[in-house]
């Protein structure tokens, strides 16, 4: 495979043709914020938090999807880059509840000096009641940053179920089933792969949602046990999140060669028998 040479922040780097600027940044250890990007999903480049300055380009370019080219000169920490990253994080945090995003996201907000409150107390938000319409998972769209990841995981990137899509337009865009139908009446097969890719806690196990509501969700006291799903012969890698000797959530590692992080309804939600047997 042929390689191209490019410069990132003045450092020369070789990158495989067909890879992205983001890949090259990571090789150099340049921490680049991302929200809508995930290695196992097609880049949609909608969040714009990964933008970098490319010499010769009129506007900033998304590192997550711009392919490397010979001789590119990229700046990842210029004034323009820092400004746009800060504004993207501020605009999002001023309209969405981002309190359950990862520590990494909060770190980026600190790094770029994001102050979401400067848009004023009247700034419109996407705040709305949590959708609880089934026993397995809840949808809290007050936390949705519209990164399209769940739509992709539900669609061609993993599950091919297409139960949800982006509906509406502009600030009123939102993730929805057809006509906002409750999940049990939709095409949803409860694989939970949307939960697996959600970066903000908008999609959450009902078990986690209930425990958080009751104040009993203690992430610091949880342990993670790796195992293999007992149901069929595929052999999906599972991570059982356990609190007080009970399974509270199931995930699969993104880099697992078997699952790429994706599971089916049984692996994701079919863990009650473990607890039942003990009683």
């Amino acid at each position, binding site marked *: 495979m042929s390689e191209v040479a490019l410069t990132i922040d003045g450092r020369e780097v070789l990158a495989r043709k067909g890879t992205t600027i983001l890949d090259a940044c990571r090789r150099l250890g340049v921490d680049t914020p991302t929200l809508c990007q995930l290695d196992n999903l097609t880049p949609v480049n909608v969040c714009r938090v990964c933008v970098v300055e490319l010499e010769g380009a009129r506007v900033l370019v998304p590192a997550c999807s711009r392919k490397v080219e010979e001789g590119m000169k990229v700046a990842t920490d210029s004034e323009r880059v820092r400004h746009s990253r800060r*504004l*993207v994080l501020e*605009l999002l945090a001023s309209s969405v509840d981002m309190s359950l995003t990862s520590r990494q996201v909060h770190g980026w907000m600190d790094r770029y000096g994001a102050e979401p409150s400067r848009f*004023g107390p009247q700034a419109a938000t996407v705040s709305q009641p949590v959708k609880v319409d089934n026993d397995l998972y809840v949808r809290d769209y007050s936390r949705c940053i519209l990164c399209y990841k769940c739509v992709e995981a539900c669609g061609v990137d993993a599950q091919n179920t297409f139960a949800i899509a*982006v509906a509406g337009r*502009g*600030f009123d865009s939102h993730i*929805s089933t*057809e*006509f906002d139908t409750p999940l049990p009446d939709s095409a949803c097969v409860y694989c939970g792969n949307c939960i697996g890719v959600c970066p903000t806690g908008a999609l959450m196990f009902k078990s986690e949602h209930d425990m958080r509501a009751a104040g009993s969700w203690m992430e610091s006291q949880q342990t993670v046990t790796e195992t293999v799903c007992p149901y069929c012969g595929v052999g999906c890698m599972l991570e059982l999140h356990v609190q007080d000797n009970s399974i509270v959530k199931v995930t699969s590692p993104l880099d697992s060669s078997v699952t790429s992080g994706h599971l089916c309804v049984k692996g994701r939600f079919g863990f009650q028998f473990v607890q039942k047997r003990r009683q």
Partner: protein
Amino acid sequence: MDIRTTGGPATIEEMAAVDGVLGEPAPADHRVVHGGRAARSQRHMLLPILHEIQDRVGWVSRGALEYACRRLSIPPAEAYGVVSFYARFALEPGRARTVHVCDDIVCQLVGAQPEHGVNCLGLCDRAPATLDEKQAPERASVRYPGSRLLRRVGIVDPESIDSYSEHGGFKALRRAREIGAEQVIREVTESKLLGRGGAAFPTGRKWESVAKAEMHPHYLVCNADESEPGTFKDRVLMEGDPFAVVEAMAIAAMTTGCDRGYIYIRDEYPLARNRIAHAIAQSRAAGLLDIDVEVRRGAGAYICGEETALFNSIEGKRGEPRNKPPFPVEVGLFGRPTLVNNVETLINVLDIVNGEFAETRLFCVSGQVKHPGVYDIPLSTPLRELLELAGAGSIQAVLLGGAAGSFVMPKQLDVPLSFEGTRAIGATLGSGAVIVFDETADMKRALMRIARFFRDESCGQCVPCRVGTKRQEEILDRMFANGGSQADVALLGDIAQAMRDASICGLGQTAANAIASGLQQLPVLNV
């Protein structure tokens, strides 16, 4: 994929609407599986189907949409995402309107204050404008004498191919066929024609790239989704000289090896749509158009004038712009090399091939002037001269380039109307919109209307534009209500920079231009 539908059956009328577009469904035979790739390949018929449903029934019910989904093998959630994207489609009975009253920048300026005003209808030469879809009126347009591009408008019978031929029609096509594709491209390149849609890309280079593209088929797309507030030149061309548009498309297709063509016309131009469809049929029958050209009807979305959003719309998807590169000449409509040109750009090709090309450009003058209309004037004419022609009186400001453009002040009226000239004063020709505000105009209202326009028309895909246009409107509103502060101005500046730098497409990148230039220059707004 299994299509799961739970919305109940469609009515007979709704099913007839869908079947009218797609043809009768195959008779029920449970030994044969229908759907799959054959059905999905018809996905691009989704918008025509939705139009047909709404035209017949007045709205798009869940039953109707799900029937369409079953026939096209589209997941209902995805189809719902498409219907809810376009302002045109009503998802509740009684919501669809067939009479639209505009209250955008120009119409508001001359007094329109409707209860449910819509964004610019492209009828600014007759502001305040209303559009009754049921009876699209004949529209006389003001013409500047000696016009090159509009020379046939108002003279030729727009519904007669013979009349068009008698007025010099198809001469360029005949010559193009004689001299061949390479020579046509050479002449277009040598003319230095720049795209008239707003981005001013060299047309010859685009044509050459598509002609040389190895992947086939090639598609031809005429962008007639003219939606920039204050812009109506393409409407005047399509209504008054539709055969010229078709002739230019025939030359473009022949020259760049396009196998199929589309002309995407905004929904608010029913007369143009009918005339273009008629001209296509006539030209095809007369053997003057070698490829099938389909008229596609927009559905109320400014963003679909952005070329890649337009492709998505033709493909039956939400009109969300794609990331570039790859550019349309490589990966365009249906993922194939695509030549996409604006109406005015294409029309110019006729004169290039006929050896009659001159560097003129169409300007749409509207607002507080005596003679609003389309003016065909030489490039680099001073703005002042154009305003005199249109009968402008005392001037407070001119909005050049529409909502995505910027304000020009009285002391700058000698600016030559050229790409370089306008750039020198930080303005742009954009789509050729020239909106005139006299001293009585309420500029705060104008700025608020521009902010509302972008908030309304942002597709919602990328964060800077989706939230930025919302915040921009909120902050302006607050400033005008309470007097505002330097901090508010700075905050707007911060948002503007991020929208300009980090938005996916031209909409977000220009959504702060007019407001920023207004706040900077208009004395009434100093805080």
